[in-house]
């Protein structure tokens, strides 16, 4: 789950951002820090590419960019960072109160993790390749393009691409060369048949 979540710390305060930059990676590994934003299109574009994004935003930016926050769509959770428990953060499912002690902060983050887990469907992959995937992997290792594989198997280019993505996700190998080595090591293809330079 950890790797599927992109977290953004959006704070004007050096102390708050520094502290969050130490704490957040304990729970979510992909953390980015933004101390100013002149162009929200870039930020929105970034968010749209992610599976799930959590934006930790301090009071300064929260008030300044309320319009932007209200308009964020998609799989994004806004977590305001406040130091006053009576403030507007009550409107949100989660908020970080910087006056809380270490135990309370960790408890809040643990709850946050549990919540996010329910929001993203982590692919529960069967790591074994299916027979179809093995055939496609053999063809990839022979140097065929997705289009050529699709033509040979009588399936669309998109279906081949989808199989390729699944193969890479299961094996955690992204490059064609890497997949080719895997195919040879697992006797799916001989070194002579493979498209290795």
């Amino acid at each position, binding site marked *: 789950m950890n790797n599927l979540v992109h977290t953004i710390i959006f704070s004007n305060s050096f102390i708050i951002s520094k502290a969050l930059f130490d704490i957040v990676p304990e729970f979510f590994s992909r953390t980015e820090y933004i101390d100013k934003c002149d162009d929200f299109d*870039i930020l929105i574009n970034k968010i749209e590419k992610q599976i799930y994004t959590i934006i930790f935003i301090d009071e300064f930016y929260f008030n300044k960019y309320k319009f932007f926050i209200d308009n964020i769509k998609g799989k994004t959770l806004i977590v305001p960072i406040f130091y006053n428990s009576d403030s507007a953060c009550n409107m949100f499912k989660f908020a970080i109160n910087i006056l809380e002690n270490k135990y309370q902060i960790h408890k809040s983050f643990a709850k946050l993790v549990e919540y996010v887990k329910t929001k993203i469907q982590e692919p529960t992959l069967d790591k074994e390749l299916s027979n179809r995937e093995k055939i496609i992997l053999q063809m990839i290792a022979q140097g065929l393009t997705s289009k050529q594989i699709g033509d040979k198997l009588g399936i669309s280019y998109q279906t081949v691409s989808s199989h390729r993505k699944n193969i890479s996700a299961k094996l955690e190998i*992204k490059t064609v060369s890497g997949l080719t080595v895997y195919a040879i*090591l697992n006797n799916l293809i001989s070194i002579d048949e493979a498209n*290795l*330079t």
Partner: protein
Amino acid sequence: MMILEDNKLADYIKDYPALLNFLDRLGVKLGFRDNTIKQVCEQYNLEVKFVIDLMMLIINRDEFNPNYLDNYAVINTVKYLKNSHQSYEFDYLPEIESLINRLAELERNRELDCKLLMMYFKEYKDDFIKHINYEDSVIFPLIVNANNTNEDINKDNIVAEYMQNHDNLDEKLVDLKNLLIRYFRPFENIAIIRSIINLLFEMEEDLRIHELIENKILFPKAQIINY
């Protein structure tokens, strides 16, 4: 972490070994005793602000916010990155290659696996060298020129294409590590495999810093941060 020019350079190196490569690429030799950053910079004729910004980036990584970006010449960053390229081409890659050769000599009954490993590595090495040569001969001169003339260097998507190639090379390195860790049958000579994997980790880490320098220092100076 704040770095001040009057702080002792050795104090940082003790805590952040990634700075060793950094110093090497600046041409700074070890044995600088209790000299401050400023004193070492003076000794090697380096811009203090540039050195401090790069140290901040290496130590703070994604948190990095340059203090002096406007104050130093783009040519220094380019020179530093070119020196890094030399280190990849003439230190890291040959060392990994010689370890794979050594492995092949010792693991005679694993001829196919060693051959496969070498083929994969050589493909990566060739692509990598081609990429850094392109960077040295095309991209860097373009950026230096753009910085001097304010010319738009993105009009032909040169930078976008080059960045795509960058990602592909990163993936190849990660795949090599993954193949060794998960998919090759265990080799007898664990020490060699461990050394190869350690070098791959080190190079991956160094490349990450290299990329950050490009993305957070070089490209912003050339006004191409969004590519």
